[in-house]
């Protein structure tokens, strides 16, 4: 468990920055939400609620609210950056976890200890999951607490937070997948970690975009966080059951490949 704790400690600063950024972003974008549910607000978003002839409390019901095109855009803007930020971060985390040790030479120190290769790889992967859990728990708890405190008189906040959680669950699954994709990618010993991570997520995003708007292929969308970053889609369709198969499948597949290769390959690229 020492390796796990050390791994978490190693990247906790970056994780903390990501968590605070996500929390700040959530709070800042959530706080103006009740204002949008006022009479002025719904005129601005296309008069949708006027047509529905609803009371203010009913209007605050999010599932109705998101039917408005402007609200759709609003939620996309809120959640897409958070989802993508987490995906890029965890992909980088997975990528750098092993390759960073090999590049910096600390793998010599670590592997000189009485610890097996499988233990090292497993604990590094586990450490990644622990960090995902910490990140999401912290982000959600803090944003929930802040929003609850600042909007305690408003019923709509519960609906907002409930929606946020569903959407963040999608981001959680995406992050876990990207973490393991990052681990698998690190086996290729690509030098520019950040650039490689960024392009991986970018290509995957492009797959989601093409799958959704060009080819109408649900399978392409499954390989991308794109779909899960669009709040209204998730709100109406939920997180597809298939995604609960594909994401863990990728997690298990990539982890297994990482462990197997790590167990059998040279830990030092060249020593002559």
């Amino acid at each position, binding site marked *: 468990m*020492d390796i796990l704790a*050390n791994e978490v*400690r*190693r990247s906790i600063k970056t994780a903390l920055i990501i968590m605070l950024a996500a929390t700040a972003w959530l709070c800042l974008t959530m706080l103006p939400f009740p204002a949008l549910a006022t009479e002025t607000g719904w005129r601005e978003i296309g008069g949708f609620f006027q047509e529905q002839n609803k009371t203010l409390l009913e209007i605050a019901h999010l599932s109705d609210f998101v039917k408005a095109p402007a609200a759709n855009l609003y939620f996309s803007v809120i959640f897409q950056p958070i989802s993508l930020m987490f995906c890029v971060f965890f992909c980088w985390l997975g990528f750098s976890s092993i390759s960073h040790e090999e590049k*910096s*030479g*600390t*793998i*010599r*120190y670590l*592997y*000189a*200890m*009485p*610890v*097996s*290769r499988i*233990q090292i790889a497993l604990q590094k992967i586990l450490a990644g999951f622990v960090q995902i859990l910490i990140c999401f728990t912290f982000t959600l708890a803090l944003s929930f607490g802040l929003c609850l405190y600042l909007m305690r008189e408003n019923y709509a906040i519960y609906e907002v937070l409930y929606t946020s959680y569903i959407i963040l669950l999608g981001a959680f699954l995406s992050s876990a997948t990207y973490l393991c994709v990052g681990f698998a990618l690190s086996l290729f010993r690509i030098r520019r970690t950040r650039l490689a991570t960024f392009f991986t997520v970018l290509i995957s995003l492009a797959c989601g975009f093409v799958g959704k708007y060009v080819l109408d292929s649900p399978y392409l969308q499954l390989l991308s966080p794109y779909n899960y970053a669009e709040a209204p889609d998730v709100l109406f369709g939920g997180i597809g059951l298939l995604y609960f198969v594909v994401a863990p499948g990728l997690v298990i597949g990539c982890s297994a490949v990482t462990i197997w290769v790590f167990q*059998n*390959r*040279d*830990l*030092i690229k*060249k*020593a*002559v």
Partner: protein
Amino acid sequence: MSILTTLSLTKKYGRKTAIRDINVQVDEGAFFGLIGPNGSGKSTFFNILMDFVRPTKGNATIFDLDCQDSGKELKTQVGYVPAVPAFYDFMKVDKLLEYTKNFYGYVDLEYLDSLCERFQINRNKKISAMGFSDKKKLALATALLHKPRILLLDEPLAGLVPIIRRRFLDTIQELHESGVTVVYGSQELNEAGHLCDIVALMNEGIIIETKEVADKGHARGKVVELQVEGDISELVMSLGAERFMKRSDTVSFNYYSDMDRLIKSLAKYVVHDIRVTDVPLENDLMTYKDEEPTVWIF
């Protein structure tokens, strides 16, 4: 009894062969020197023993445990110091020592304190603020804290200042005297030559020669440097001196015979200064392999 054995150990990186058919046997309590220039394959040899890399052919065992299959059990008995030590920059020395300690379970804390004191390791220092020399000291401390039975040292003195080198060597010698087996890789034969029981000379991935240094210095003779008035060349050559050289008023030669006889013979000359040192092992081996001198140019 042999505790380290390698059989036809070969490692290839693509088309480049790093080491080829290395057969080595190291007895318990021995001080084994692995000497060779840069790129001769010493580090690859250590990397295979530590299971950092996997051999292309052959196998290596320590205490009858295969280095590739039983790495975890083996490492409780092995201490390893790399040529370039690297630790986690975000840690403090104290944290790193604790982290290392936890891998072994039980560690003698008094012994750990004594190691830190001996190498003057500042335990509150951050690793990112440590220089190369400090990291080397820390590497030796982490390699020793679990009291290993065998020490694998890959160029342990490279890049160290003389006073630290001395302290390192003293520690290694003490450990060796207490029964620890030492495998010592170096580019410089003289560095620990006087400590070695056996020296294996490596170049281009193969062991060219393995030589026992049982006599450790005595039979290797002495290098005598004299500041003397008059010509003593004929005298010392007649006494069996070798490699006689004269530079202004200083002469030097290798002397393998009776020292008492030499000193008494020099009594009739005016000697201003005299310096007697052990013949470097390199000279000895260069003589030994005179027909292939390029091998020994480090």
